[in-house]
């Protein structure tokens, strides 16, 4: 046991925190909830990438659930160099 370990308060709190985060994701996925965003993201990216090339990690997809209306926000950053293809298509 190193000196650092001696002063650290056990590893159980880390285990507990990791589990809480992981299980929150897994439970939502099992209920088919948060995965909706994952599926939407994949399909939207597939459609757009057929026409324009872009960096997949420059895409943000957010969903806000409201009482009467929910919004889906898709934000795709397209580099200027290839936006010509976008203009030509119009």
């Amino acid at each position, binding site marked *: 046991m190193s000196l650092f370990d001696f002063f650290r308060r*056990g590893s*159980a709190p880390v*285990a*507990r925190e990791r*589990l*809480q985060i*992981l*299980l929150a994701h897994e*439970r939502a996925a099992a209920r088919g909830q948060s995965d909706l965003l994952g599926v939407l993201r994949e399909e939207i990216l597939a459609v757009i990438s057929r026409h324009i090339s872009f960096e997949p990690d420059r895409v943000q997809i957010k969903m806000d659930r409201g009482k009467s209306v929910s919004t889906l926000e898709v934000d795709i950053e397209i580099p200027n160099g290839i936006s010509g293809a976008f203009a030509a298509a119009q």
Partner: protein
Amino acid sequence: MAQVLVVTSGKGGVGKTTSTAALGAALAQDGERVVVVDFDVGLRNLDLVMGAERRVVFDLINVIHGVAKLQQALIRDKRLENLCLLPASQTRDKDALTEHGVARVIAELRTKFDWIICDSPAGIERGATLAMRNADAAIIVTNPEVSSVRDSDRIIGLLDSKTAKAERGERVAKHLLITRYHPSRAARGEMLSIDDVLEILSTPLLGIIPESEEVLRASNVGTPVTLNNTLSAPALAYFDAARRLKGEEIPLVVPSASRGIFNRLFGRKAA
């Protein structure tokens, strides 16, 4: 009315078979008619832990396929006459179990016993879902360790969706049994505490079985720990858990760090 219990966990090696044997023997010592059923087809071990490995002639799959009658396959315990074992097959693969066949055998067992305790195989495949299929209640065996807790969470999800009760819109009662608990390591913050596990899984606690050499000693000689050394710490914890299953209110005591003494009263209500 007969109660069908499934002892399940997802993860292997956490103590399902040990707990099935220990709880079965504890209930039988209390005068209940008990059968323990091994669902681990191909990797049966309940016969070994019960000390009946040389008495297996017919098994669950023989009964399902009509090769043997239920009475021929049931092995009566030599120590407790109201405790029986229905072994799994060691050779056939788990596809030999059919949903209809399992339901028929469980229905027949319900007419002969007060408690039918199904020892589930590890995993979330067909063998595990068939073991839980007809359960009225589940005992989820969990070690205070990240992979075991995660798998238990998964199993709890299956109990709420894949069981006959869940499909009828009812709930399978769930009880958490924490095994291999090291009081001193939990006190030092090296092991998830009981409160951590309960908070994460939010399932009522049936009992806490402390890590003990008595468990290995009992399985070495083929005797459930509740028969081998009835005054050992794990045996006492299993006896309490069995009484809670029967609906008795027994205060839950967290095994404390001071050796062998169970002294800290646990405020939480039992399952």
